[in-house]
């Protein structure tokens, strides 16, 4: 039994110290999620700020409702998703309120592996994922854990008791659905954009 599982059990029994330790563990996990694979640059600072927001959001939530280890990671990933979404919306609202109008919401600069690609739209990604949730909750959860949660497929496999090959197949389905939706969203947006 992992430390987190023990903490969850103790917290559910009313152990206040376990509850605090669980909360601290969740905070550490959020930090890990936001920092993973970062090399140099100022990304860690930004990530830490976002984690802080995630923590504040969690502080207002009922942490004790977390009932197992999978739920713990799913909660952390969901919070990160929401924090990133809120941050993008706030930034875009701020820009729209400035002296120039933003034509599209896809100005996010991507780095690293996707450096040669045009900026992807975090909002379109979130909308597509919400649509996937309606179609297939398991696929959507996998995307949350891997993309927003930063877990490797091997970690998700251990967490969910599913084989990696099965998760790979699901990831390919989810990826295809999401990219298809994002492409469709872009085509729709470009129709309404003056050339």
């Amino acid at each position: 039994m992992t430390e987190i599982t023990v903490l969850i059990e103790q917290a559910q029994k009313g152990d206040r110290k376990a509850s605090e330790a669980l909360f601290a563990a969740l905070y550490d996990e959020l930090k890990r999620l936001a920092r993973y694979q970062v090399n140099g640059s100022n990304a860690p600072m930004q990530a830490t700020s976002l984690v802080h927001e995630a923590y504040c959001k969690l502080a207002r939530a009922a942490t004790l409702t977390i009932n197992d280890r999978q739920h713990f990671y799913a909660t952390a990933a969901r919070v990160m998703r929401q924090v990133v979404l809120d941050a993008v919306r706030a930034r875009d609202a701020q820009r729209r309120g400035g002296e120039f109008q933003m034509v599209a919401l896809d100005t996010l600069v991507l780095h690293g592996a996707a450096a040669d690609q045009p900026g992807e739209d975090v909002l379109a990604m979130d909308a597509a994922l919400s649509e996937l949730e309606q179609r297939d909750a398991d696929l959507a959860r996998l995307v949350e854990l891997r993309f927003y949660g930063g877990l490797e497929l091997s970690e998700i496999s251990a967490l969910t008791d599913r084989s990696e090959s099965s998760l790979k197949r699901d990831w390919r389905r989810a990826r295809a659905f999401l990219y298809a939706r994002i492409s469709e969203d872009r085509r729709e947006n470009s129709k309404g954009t003056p050339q």
Partner: protein
Amino acid sequence: MTASHVRWEAVIALFDALLELPEAERQRRLEVMAVTAPELVAEVAAMLAADQREPGILETTLALLVMDIEPISHAGDGPGEPDSKADP
């Protein structure tokens, strides 16, 4: 199981079945099926095209993704040092 679930199962089944086929054979089957199930074929064709695309947002990492985002707030009741941790 609702109608939308049945349809999603059909999308996934067709996507999986066509995924590993050679392009020409894949197109041939899609064209045949498009006669009777154009919407299903359109959705699966879009997913097959998306499967072949270059790496995008899903291939980057959250930390790199958020580099361009200004946090909404900076100060507050974060945990900080263990002794100063906010009381949940």
